[in-house]
């Protein structure tokens, strides 16, 4: 798979629109201003994925949502444990956090809201109809979690395409990685749609 300049620009635009809307929704949920980084579009060797957020043995939380419809893929929200705690405190507006079940439920809801907003913006922009799955979660070593998240895409591919944005929330400097990973076969369709069919 190759990614020329034009295709990269198209994907950056998709990520920008999706992440912008997700940031607005996130801000509405926690009541703090959210800043986001300029989205990065990268084709990476699947071997490098486990260390994409830093140390592959770092303990992280990951919320995974699959989307499907005219194009399909995955959304991953990745947060290290320090930031999970900050985020939960913002969501619940208290330092006195409720039990694990409520915490997981809140994180799942966050995943739903962010991916819903991201996908809706892409729907509006591309006129594609996309549905999202219920979130799945994992807490563990970054390498173990990240490698397992995309293992179904690695059957025939040695590379994956990542659209990456980082969100930083409020004074707390809460950091959250957001990855949008379209399935390879979906990409051609996306390019055709967005470039008015001018891609061969």
């Amino acid at each position, binding site marked *: 798979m190759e990614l020329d300049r034009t295709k990269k620009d198209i994907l950056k635009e998709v990520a920008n629109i999706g992440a912008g809307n997700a940031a607005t929704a996130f801000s509405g949920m926690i009541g703090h201003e959210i800043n986001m980084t300029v989205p990065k579009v990268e084709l990476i060797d699947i*071997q490098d994925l*486990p260390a994409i957020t830093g140390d592959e043995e770092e303990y992280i939380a990951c919320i995974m949502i699959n989307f499907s419809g005219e194009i399909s893929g995955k959304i991953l929200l990745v947060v290290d444990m320090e930031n999970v705690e900050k985020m939960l405190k913002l969501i619940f507006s208290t330092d006195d956090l409720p039990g694990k079940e409520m915490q*997981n439920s809140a994180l799942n809801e966050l995943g739903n809201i962010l991916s819903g907003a991201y996908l809706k913006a892409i729907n509006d922009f591309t006129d594609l109809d996309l549905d999202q799955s219920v979130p*799945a*979660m994992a807490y563990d*070593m970054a*390498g173990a979690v990240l*490698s*397992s998240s995309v293992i179904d895409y690695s*059957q025939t591919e040695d590379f994956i395409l990542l659209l990456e944005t980082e969100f930083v929330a409020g004074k707390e400097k809460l950091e959250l990685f957001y990855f949008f990973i379209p399935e390879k076969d979906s990409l051609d369709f996306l390019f055709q749609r967005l470039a008015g069919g001018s891609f061969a």
Partner: protein
Amino acid sequence: MVVLPSSDLVAEKMVVKMADHAIGDENTVLATLGLGSCIGIALYDKFSKVGGLVHIMLPENPGGKKTVKYADTGIPFLIEEMEAAGAKKRRLSAKIVGGAGMFKSESGDSVMKIGERNIEAVKEVLKNEGIKVIGSDVGKDYGRSMYFYPDDGRVEVKSFSRDLITI
């Protein structure tokens, strides 16, 4: 108290990435970090002290793909490489680590079954090669790092869920 793997005391550590492999001798430690649904397979010939480690991701090579990414092509490849380094196939034994189901839905159900399929495939391939599995730490729902010491064949497994174990 945190117990560090004894690899921290060994001179030459070779880290094996996903879909990769390495061969070592008694002066090395072969490590692979953050195994989730993937499986690390350590093969060992205790007479020549040749050790091999392969980190596979999936059960079956669909054909023409990277050899060491799949159990069915990665394990035979590792055996050949070890024989070239002086090991004898009939003396090899295996220790396997990984094959977890990492993601769960809110109701607690595991959402992907690839870890389980990997465990089955690895056991099947080893059986067909006539190599006995003498140690394993597989399945369940947590990530693992493994450290394989060809000086005596031991494998240490590190996980957040429990203490360091040796298999």
